């Protein structure tokens, strides 16, 4: 298997991009990544998107994007794994290059979520849950994570204040990210007094509805060394795992088995341990998710994740900074784009291009991208050469 590197990154400023269409958003990010990489052609493209069919009534987006990107007849594949679609696009591009079939491949992700009503967006997102045995009974996505949160609070004494600290930390980081949808700070009281969505989760415990795209250009290491003028970020390994999508079919609600397994596989492939990771971008679709994920990645003992943001350990400058980009919470969560945007933040940090939110001396980083309520997870580990 050949070694693979990220050689170019591109994304938009995320938000409610009413003036831009699905194809505009994607092409903008792809073009930025191609220019950043300094390449004039690519051999293939993978696009992660959860459900453009429900959000804007458009499928067959692989061909649409290749056409509007102006790369005639480019073999393009759309991949889907709910909110982990972007992570699966990265993995797919990695494998195509590692196998030797292609040298330069784009991994992208996109979602255009504000072209439909809030009700329609809620419905579209709920299709990532078990339609007949969860959504049928009125469970929503915040509701599913709220049930995990209540269980975590019951078993380990995690508090609503600790949940709020995750939002506060991520908004603080996001306030320094020019591409973030909500680049402003919030307070613990502000989170606790915000509207309740699904008890115990308030609106400021939830990631937002976002339009956005993210693309990276990946290449085999030899090609990367020839082309790349910036520090080369090597992908050391990945792990991918699934789990029951219905919460009631899992043994535990305070553990995300797909994340545990994906992380084990990624650590093994990369030859790394949790202690070797300098910082991570993780899937904080809800504040409780970040708490559970940092436990399941091995950064915190099970049940102690709630102390991470509260104590400062997961802040920039702390023991293990989590979500320096602002995470899904502040940066935004265009579902299909999120996994790729995590790789972009890692690349920028490892190249030393992260501006006011730069983590000094970071060499090795991890991304964790999760689908639905944890029914799929992709973990990548990267290192700067």
């Amino acid at each position, binding site marked *: 298997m050949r070694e693979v590197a990220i050689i170019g990154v591109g994304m938009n400023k995320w938000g409610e991009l009413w003036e831009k269409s699905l194809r505009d958003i994607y092409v903008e990010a792809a073009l930025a990544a191609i220019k950043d990489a300094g390449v004039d052609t690519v051999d293939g493209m993978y696009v992660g998107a959860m459900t453009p069919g429900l959000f804007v009534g458009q499928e067959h987006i692989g061909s649409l994007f290749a056409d509007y990107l102006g790369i005639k007849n480019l073999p393009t594949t759309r991949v889907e794994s709910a909110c982990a679609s972007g992570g699966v696009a990265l993995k797919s591009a990695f494998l195509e290059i590692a196998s030797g079939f292609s040298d330069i491949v784009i991994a992208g992700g996109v979602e255009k979520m504000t072209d439909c009503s809030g*009700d329609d967006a*809620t*419905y579209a997102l*709920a299709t990532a849950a*078990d339609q*007949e*045995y*969860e*959504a*049928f*009974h*009125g*469970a*929503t996505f*915040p*509701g599913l994570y*709220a*049930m*995990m949160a*209540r*269980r975590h609070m*019951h078993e380990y004494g995690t508090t609503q204040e600790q949940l709020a600290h995750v939002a506060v930390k991520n908004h603080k980081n996001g306030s320094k990210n020019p591409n973030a949808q909500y680049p402003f700070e919030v307070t613990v009281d502000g989170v606790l007094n915000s*509207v*309740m*969505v*699904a*008890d*115990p*989760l308030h609106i400021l415990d939830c990631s937002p509805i976002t339009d956005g795209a993210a693309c990276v250009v990946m290449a085999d290491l030899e090609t990367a060394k020839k082309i790349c003028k910036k520090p080369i970020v090597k992908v050391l390994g990945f792990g991918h795992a699934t789990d029951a999508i*219905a*919460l*009631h*079919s899992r043994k535990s*609600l305070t553990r995300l088995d797909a994340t545990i397994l994906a992380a084990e596989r990624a650590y093994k492939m990369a030859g790394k341990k949790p202690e070797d990771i300098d910082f991570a971008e993780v899937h904080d679709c809800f504040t409780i998710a970040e708490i559970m994920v940092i436990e399941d990645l091995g950064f915190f003992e099970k049940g102690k994740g709630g102390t991470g943001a509260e104590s400062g350990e997961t802040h920039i400058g702390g023991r293990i900074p989590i979500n320096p980009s602002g995470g899904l919470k502040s940066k935004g969560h265009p579902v299909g784009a999120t996994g790729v945007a995590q790789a972009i933040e890692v690349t920028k940090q490892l190249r030393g291009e992260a501006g006011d939110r730069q983590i000094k001396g970071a060499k090795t980083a991890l991304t964790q991208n999760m689908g639905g309520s944890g029914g799929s997870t992709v973990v990548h580990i990267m290192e700067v050469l």
Partner: protein
Amino acid sequence: MFPGRTWREYPQRYRLEAVKCSKSGSVYFPPRLVTPGTLDSDCLEPYTLPDDGTIYTFTVIEVPPNQFKDEAPYVVGIIELSDGTKITCQVTDCDPSKLEIGQKVKIEFRRIQTDGEHGVLSYGYKAVPALKGVTTV
């Protein structure tokens, strides 16, 4: 919703019909075609879930999907039935502020939702608190 989609779920939703593996004794709800981890489809036998259990976890949905607009706020929970099987359903006829993990519930047959312009009614199971001191109607 096309009526066939809800009709084919009647055995599970109306009568709590599940399957049990004759080798391991594991129960699966909703019924599935293969025993997990074995690729064996011959050892699953019909089995009916008990209708009593406890609240394993729950939430109060304040922002509902469209077809539940008239019901919010309402409680959705995961119930651990007395045989250990877990199911997701609404907890109804209760004061949400008084619910607790571990509280005893009975499973009852109820209307779940009215879908779309034509108002196709869907029925199924909901949990109702069985504890003394909690208001039940």
